[in-house]
């Protein structure tokens, strides 16, 4: 079919119970987001830029500067693993502050990263000194170009630009502790900071992305995850800021701007502290920062969560007879550190609890660079087999082989991305 509009419509129709035709990957995701089941549980492409770079063996000093290379590496890796959609993103937190003049560290093997020990913003007067974002500076042109070519090459609801959301951008510019002190102790300064990053930094970036062809852009906000911020603080600062940006993007650019994603993502690390009431509060607020109502797990220690709670939330907060779609995120460290058999059993457990009635989507909460590819291939395979609808009555009877996968370099031969990846490996700074 290869027409994202038709695929989306097919998914909507399928998700409404008219289960005809063979679903595309996009259609499968859309049908599941309706809170119902598709032909099988989808596996959404995770944030994977570090890992993709490592597997493709391309140099960091080229990969994080070259939009076409970054896109093609993602497309190849996403197909190699067999994800249903892709998250194509070069670390979303560093582009704006780099262009504003923050001190950075550059490495041969890792993404460029800001040095918060030499903060860009220390006090009010720094805002005037720094001034608005110049979209010709730093790697902003690369990011805008990337947004444009994603829109052309990967059309559909999941192809888009990216940016750093206001609270995370403030943290990147002045360090998290100072950002927290501002919102807890100096509301006037905090509001000035939000106004500055929204109007003088993010909006010009949106304009540039829009000019490059992007119709949508999403802003990650990991610094606003719980317990970095509480649900009250996210509600007070992150949600209104996201609403302001969305309204301005729509009004002035006719663009969908979604800020604050992952705000209130429940990232408590200590299982002894897992608390159902707080999780529900976090999910309530997280819904407000997502582009749709969803029972959301992201970067948290989900392998130790009681997923009955997430299922309960999805059912109790659904509308009509639909439950909320569940984004079930396999923790990145869990994927990296676990034996394939352990990953399979976790997926089996989650499908048993949350998948039988549909509305379940898997992904991984940011794949670490050194994750064994076998673990990811096994996870995708397990979701495909165990998540086939109708889910078999005795799910434990299904055996998942953790068989060897075709090595990436062997698979790459003859793929459209082969030339650019092989050429990149030869690149010298």
């Amino acid at each position: 079919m290869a027409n994202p509009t038709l695929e989306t419509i097919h998914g909507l129709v399928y998700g409404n119970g008219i289960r005809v035709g063979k679903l595309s990957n996009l259609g499968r995701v859309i049908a599941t987001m309706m809170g119902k089941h598709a032909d099988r549980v989808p596996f959404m492409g995770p944030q994977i830029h570090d890992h993709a770079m490592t597997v493709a063996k391309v140099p960091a000093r080229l990969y994080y500067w070259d939009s076409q290379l970054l896109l093609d590496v993602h497309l190849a890796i996403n197909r190699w693993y067999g994800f249903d959609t892709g998250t194509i993103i070069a670390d979303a937190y560093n582009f704006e502050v780099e262009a504003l003049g923050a001190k950075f560290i550059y490495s041969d093997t890792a993404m460029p990263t800001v040095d918060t020990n030499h903060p860009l913003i220390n006090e009010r007067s720094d805002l005037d000194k720094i001034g608005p974002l110049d979209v010709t500076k730093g790697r902003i042109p690369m990011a805008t170009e990337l947004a444009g070519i994603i829109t052309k090459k990967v059309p559909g609801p999941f192809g888009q630009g990216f940016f750093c959301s206001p609270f995370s951008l403030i943290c990147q510019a002045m360090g998290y502790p100072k950002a927290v002190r501002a919102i807890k102790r100096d509301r006037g300064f905090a509001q000035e900071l939000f106004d500055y990053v929204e109007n003088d930094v993010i909006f010009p970036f949106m304009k540039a992305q829009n000019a490059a062809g992007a119709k949508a852009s999403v802003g990650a906000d990991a610094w606003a995850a719980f317990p970095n911020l509480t649900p009250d603080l996210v509600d007070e600062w992150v949600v209104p800021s996201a609403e302001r940006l969305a309204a301005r993007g729509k009004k002035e650019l006719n663009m969908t701007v979604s800020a604050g994603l992952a705000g209130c993502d429940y990232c408590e690390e200590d299982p002894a502290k897992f608390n159902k009431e707080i999780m529900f509060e976090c999910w309530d607020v997280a819904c407000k920062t997502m582009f749709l109502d969803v029972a959301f797990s992201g970067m948290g220690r989900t392998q130790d969560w009681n997923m009955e709670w997430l299922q309960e939330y999805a059912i109790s907060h659904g509308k009509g007879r639909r439950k909320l779609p569940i984004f079930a995120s396999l923790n990145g460290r869990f994927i990296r550190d676990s034996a394939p058999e352990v990953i399979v059993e976790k997926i089996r457990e989650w499908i048993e609890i949350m998948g039988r009635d549909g509305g379940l989507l898997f992904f991984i909460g940011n794949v670490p660079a050194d994750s064994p590819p076998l673990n990811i291939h096994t996870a995708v395979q397990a979701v495909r087999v165990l998540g086939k609808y109708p889910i078999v009555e005795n799910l434990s009877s299904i055996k998942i082989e953790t068989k060897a996968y075709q090595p990436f370099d062997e698979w790459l031969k003859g793929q459209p991305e082969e030339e650019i990846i092989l050429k990149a490996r030869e690149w010298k700074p």
Partner: protein
Amino acid sequence: MTGKFTTIREAVVDGEDEKAALLVEEALAEGLPPLEILNQGVIAGISKTGELWKANEYFLPDVILSADAFKSAMVVLEPALKEGSDGKPSHKVVIGVVEGDMHDLGKSLIIALLQSAGFEVIDLGIDVPKDKFIAAVRDYNPAIVGLGAYMSTTMLEMKEIIAELTKQGLRDSVKVMVGGVPTSQEFADEVGADAWGKDAMVAMEKALELVGGQNG
């Protein structure tokens, strides 16, 4: 006297940095023993914050402000403590964020907590090359070296540092702790660390376990 300690403790718990410093100044001016101000006021405060954190009553913003108040109080208190020191050595911790990595929020919190537990902390900062860790272990002879990383690409440096400690014949003389967002117990085991701190509070507890005591 107890009232003054209580107000210092509350100022630290409430994250009121200026008030905490002022109260410590007053307590010293009133002639209260610095060690008692430390234990019954400042450390009691940061310990209470730790309890509230564990009980899901305090979250990271509260801990940040409390740590600020702790540090402000310590700036005033430290000179008086040094004057009255009995010369008893405390355990040293060398700590830093590995090369290529700039994120140091966790490190800052851990340093505050380690100091509250009585450790002497040598902070090597961020983006610390392997050789600098090795030299610091040689120079300071710490009980513990703490390695932090935020990125899954940079944390691999920890393995190199531990291997170098072994190569230089220093590994048996120092305990190695690792921590940071992408790390895990499995990773700590894999690289041969002695302990992994999943958050600042746990890191402090494990540091105490490693030196086998109630105090650093």
